[in-house]
């Protein structure tokens, strides 16, 4: 069975500083990996996804993530955050690109 672990429930970061949100997964087969963002009182929006090919994936809003098969990780990074990046971030895994299994989320708070 597939699962996702987001160890950091909350991450405070100063504005314009870099950030990394950690995601580790477990699966017995090849996986597809996703990062979603959820702004307050809104639905989830896809930031980026890894299906195959290059392990460095670039997404919207300046975010990127790197798939590391040996470490079973898919950490999300941004070199310089803005106030508008304050939101909840969810990592998700899919074994057949059908059923998504989500992590518990990381709340990113940007400090002015």
């Amino acid at each position, binding site marked *: 069975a597939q699962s996702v672990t987001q160890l950091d429930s909350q991450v405070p970061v100063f504005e314009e500083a870099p950030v990394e949100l950690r995601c580790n997964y477990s699966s017995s087969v090849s996986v597809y990996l996703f990062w979603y963002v959820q702004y307050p009182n809104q*639905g989830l929006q896809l930031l980026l996804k890894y299906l195959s090919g290059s392990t460095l994936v670039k997404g919207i809003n300046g975010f990127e993530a790197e798939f590391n098969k040996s470490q079973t990780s898919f950490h999300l990074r941004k070199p310089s955050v803005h106030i508008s990046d304050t939101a909840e971030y969810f990592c998700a895994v899919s074994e057949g690109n059908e059923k*998504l299994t989500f992590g518990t989320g990381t709340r990113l708070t940007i400090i002015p």
Partner: protein
Amino acid sequence: EAGVVQSPRYKIIEKKQPVAFWCNPISGHNTLYWYLQNLGQGPELLIRYENEEAVDDSQLPKDRFSAERLKGVDSTLKIQPAELGDSAVYLCASSFGAGDEQFFGPGTRLTVL
């Protein structure tokens, strides 16, 4: 282009009462999903439809939850009777096909008193 539409956005009911949530997916999307999101948790799949057929309802508590997508377009999720533990956000998502990107609606926040 309109996104996934859900109504109501908020619902407060007393326990043991019935409640229903409605979802209209993006036009042309054949696959529709209902997720449950508890506070501080990620969404969990309740049921997935391919057109009007429920192809994965293994996580749907069938003693009190039911769903339908009669014409393969919009869908309704019902709880009867509601329990205190059902307080959560109910998210609807849709995709063109089972393997395509899922687009999420804003959700319905249910509070059971």
